[in-house]
């Protein structure tokens, strides 16, 4: 069944069950991926997936939901029946409605449709990449974590009031994590990830170069003394922190009492005035963009922090109604509708604030710690408490020379971190999760084992 036929089938089955109000989200995908091991194909994988989530409203206007991979006529009927039963347990304390924006026009990025290059070509490309990466330095012995994949999928949202949206797209991803070994030293590992609309769009050479340079740069390492340090966050690591604490901007989290913010936090100063943060799912550099969310609300650019103050929260339909505003296009369809950011863009505001502009990661000659990548986010972040303690990969810089840090964690409080930003570099870098410049923060605790 295609998406129009599914809509018709749901409509018919809903009529039969006397369900007047319903909506659904569906996704259909074909994925292909390869992994290699020392020049040989290791695992080749293909999958065809379909997922349908149906919501129904019963006569008391309570919502029930069911998810299934069985998109047959009988599967759809069963899903509607189960959703109807589940609606008896619908949340009486917080109602859910269709998004008032579910029929508004959407902006779809114009991207040329890619065709699958096929497993054989994926395999050839990855084999070549593995060889080049291993040959790039004598200490790189293997690439234990690697993969090249391409996905083709369609997303659909429709409801009983006639809203219907669908879009299809393709995406490819390459990751290369190399392992380097030298005599009498611990093995070191680092890597790179690149995305593209298709396998042919991925900059494989830069992925190899980045993985190689990063891995080699960690070969000479030493332990670091436990102390407070001046820190430079790479764009990737700063975006990791912001995403980990995005509950600060999340209306769902605020209602649930698990956010550091509350309903009165709009306008609250939470960082240096030089900081602007946006959520911009439709940004031209966002390969994973989607023109609408799980409730059919169009995706849009939204300012979260303006000159250090909270400007907006992200919303679903129900949270927007509670906050007396409009949905922002950040909902995920579910029994309890989730809210999450799309793609974070960090900028230095245009006004000339009191930043230490001499702090530039490529020229500064004083002592500082450069945090390249933060790890174990799920374990080391207490979003509801604002605290974090995270292992990282990075270097300590002294007198313009850098040495890799053997093993260390950085710990602190998100509010302290944002308030103690001492410089925001001018140039931004595109990462897989957003865009950010390098961000400097003073006096964060680092635990090492020196």
């Amino acid at each position, binding site marked *: 069944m295609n998406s129009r036929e599914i809509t018709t089938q749901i409509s018919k089955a809903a009529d039969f069950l006397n369900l007047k109000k319903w909506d659904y989200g569906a996704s259909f995908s074909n994925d292909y991926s390869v992994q290699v*091991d020392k020049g*040989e*194909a*290791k*695992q*080749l*994988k*293909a*999958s*065809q*997936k379909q997922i349908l989530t149906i919501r129904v409203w019963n006569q008391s206007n309570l919502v*029930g*939901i*069911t*998810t*299934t*991979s*069985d*998109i047959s006529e009988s599967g759809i009927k069963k899903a509607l029946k*189960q959703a109807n*039963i*589940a609606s008896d*347990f*619908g*949340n009486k*304390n*917080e109602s859910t409605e269709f998004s008032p924006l579910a029929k508004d026009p959407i902006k779809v990025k114009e991207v040329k449709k890619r065709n699958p290059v096929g*497993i054989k070509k994926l395999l050839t490309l990855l084999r070549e990449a593995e060889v080049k990466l291993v040959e790039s330095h004598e200490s790189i012995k*293997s690439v*234990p*974590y690697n993969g090249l994949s391409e996905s083709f999928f369609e997303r659909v949202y429709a409801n009983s009031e006639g809203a219907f949206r669908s879009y299809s797209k393709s995406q490819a991803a390459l990751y290369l*994590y190399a*392992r380097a070994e030298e005599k009498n030293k611990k*093995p070191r*590992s680092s890597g790179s990830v690149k995305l593209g609309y298709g396998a042919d769009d991925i900059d494989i050479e830069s992925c190899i170069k980045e993985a190689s340079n990063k891995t080699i740069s960690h070969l000479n390492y030493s332990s670091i003394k436990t102390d407070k340090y001046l820190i430079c966050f790479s764009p990737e690591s700063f975006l990791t922190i912001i995403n980990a604490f995005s509950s600060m901007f999340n209306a769902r989290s605020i209602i649930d*009492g*698990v956010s550091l913010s509350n309903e009165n936090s709009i306008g609250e100063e939470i960082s240096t005035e030089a900081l602007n943060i946006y959520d911009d799912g439709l940004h031209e550099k966002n390969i994973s963009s989607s023109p609408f969310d799980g409730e059919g609300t169009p995706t849009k650019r939204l300012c979260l922090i303006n000159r250090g103050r909270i400007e907006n929260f992200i919303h679903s339909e129900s949270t927007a109604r509670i906050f007396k505003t409009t949905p922002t296009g950040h909902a995920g369809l*579910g*029994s*309890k509708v989730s809210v999450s950011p799309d793609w974070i863009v960090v900028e230095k505001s245009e006004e000339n604030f009191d930043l230490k502009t001499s702090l530039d990661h490529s020229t500064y000659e004083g002592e500082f710690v450069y945090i390249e990548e933060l*790890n*174990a986010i*799920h*374990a080391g972040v*207490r979003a*509801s*408490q*604002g*605290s974090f*303690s*995270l*292992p990282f990969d990075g270097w300590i810089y002294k007198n313009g020379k850098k040495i890799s840090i053997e*093993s*260390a*964690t950085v*710990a602190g409080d998100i509010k302290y971190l944002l308030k103690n930003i001492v410089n925001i570099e001018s140039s931004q870098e595109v990462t897989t999760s957003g865009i950010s410049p390098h961000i400097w923060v003073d006096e964060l*605790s680092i*635990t*090492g*084992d020196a």
Partner: protein
Amino acid sequence: MLSSQIKSNEIVFGSCNKDLLEEIIFYGIGLGADFVEIFIENTDNSSVLAEEDFITSVSPSFGRGAGIRIFKGQKDGFVSTNDLTKHGLMKSVSQAIEMLDITDNKREVFNGLNKHRDYSLSKKKWINEVPTIHEISEKLLVSTKSLKKNNKIITRKGSYSRNLQEVIIASSDGTYVSDIRLHQTVGLNVIASDSQYRSSGSRRFGSSGMPNEFRLWDHEKAANDVFESSMNMLYADYVDAGQMPVVLANKFGGVIFHEACGHLLETTQIERGTTPFENKLNEKIAHESVTAIDEGISEGSFGSLSVDDEGMEPEKSVLIKDGILKKFISDRAGELRTGHKRTGSGRRQNYSFAAASRMRNTYIAKGEHSKEDLINSISEGLYCKSMGGGSVGATGQFNFAVEEGYLIKNGKLTSPVKGATLIGEAKEVMPKISMCGNDLELAPGFCGSISGSVNVTVGQPHIKVDSITVGGR
């Protein structure tokens, strides 16, 4: 020849699918595959969430699909699909064959499937024995009410989920089995707040193959435990970072062994060349007080199985005996690529993942000491009563959050501390586990890795680590 024997053109759960499965396997072998494996599943899941004094989410889901794996030499091609018709399954086999670029004329022999081993016979009634949504909702609401013990508790949550998975596994070595798996898990969470102070507490419980278990769950005891944990930590100071001895509590304390050492004993790590223990079989890798086990046979434990996802009954594997490495955890691909015999540990989240060597119920065996013996032996250190999650890096470094910690001074527990993380490397820490308590207990969890998220049990008695890096502020 075989098409005349086909009785159904689609997989039908609860019926004999032997003829259709044989035809699919013959088809793959005929096209040049060395080995063909078919994994088919039918799922019926539901979850319920209670927040404060309301049920805020009831989420049923169901689905079905197949994962087909073809081996040629040491290479494998894996295709997953929702199409369980003969046409859909054959198309998947063709796709896997094409991916592997099989062109040689060498043909393996397939002698048909063995007698059906049906592990599901006594389990078909489970779907009618599990608690209803009404029962679950009522008990969760009583549980969240029990968490409201003072006005410092600002958020209360109770969650339940039930996964019922019916599987059919067939492969060209004759394996033909069916099984039904039931997993139930329930968790409680609170956030406590008092002016600028905040803390949280959480506990999760789980079982496999015990439809009545949720009804027997002692929610009052669980609520008291979660409440006390959050209160103890509410005004805690941040821990000072440094090297120190630690005592890790039993139950979920075993997550460190699971993450930091257990994963390094899976044959997938040997295949990648990422375990420091690859060539250490029968060598000492841990303190002689350490014996570690991985098994899938403890009745009701979250990681137990009647049969693994490759059709093999699970065994009890002694991984480390008195500090000596004795065995690796292996699946079919692991045996093929590393030579380590299968241990009934081929596991996957669902049909869309190829099975891999994964842990089941993994724990450090009990020793002779009491918990007090361990604490009394430390003049200054840290007691980690409750562990959070953690991770292990590509080179074996691990990092774990301590959810509830207390300083040890002169052999006694003193003030609570927060913000601690334990940092180290398995091969350096394992020799430092110098004392094991006599109070082994297990705890359920979910483990995410190459073949998705699977149910596991972690466990240990109280253990003492002579020195480890504690991250803090």
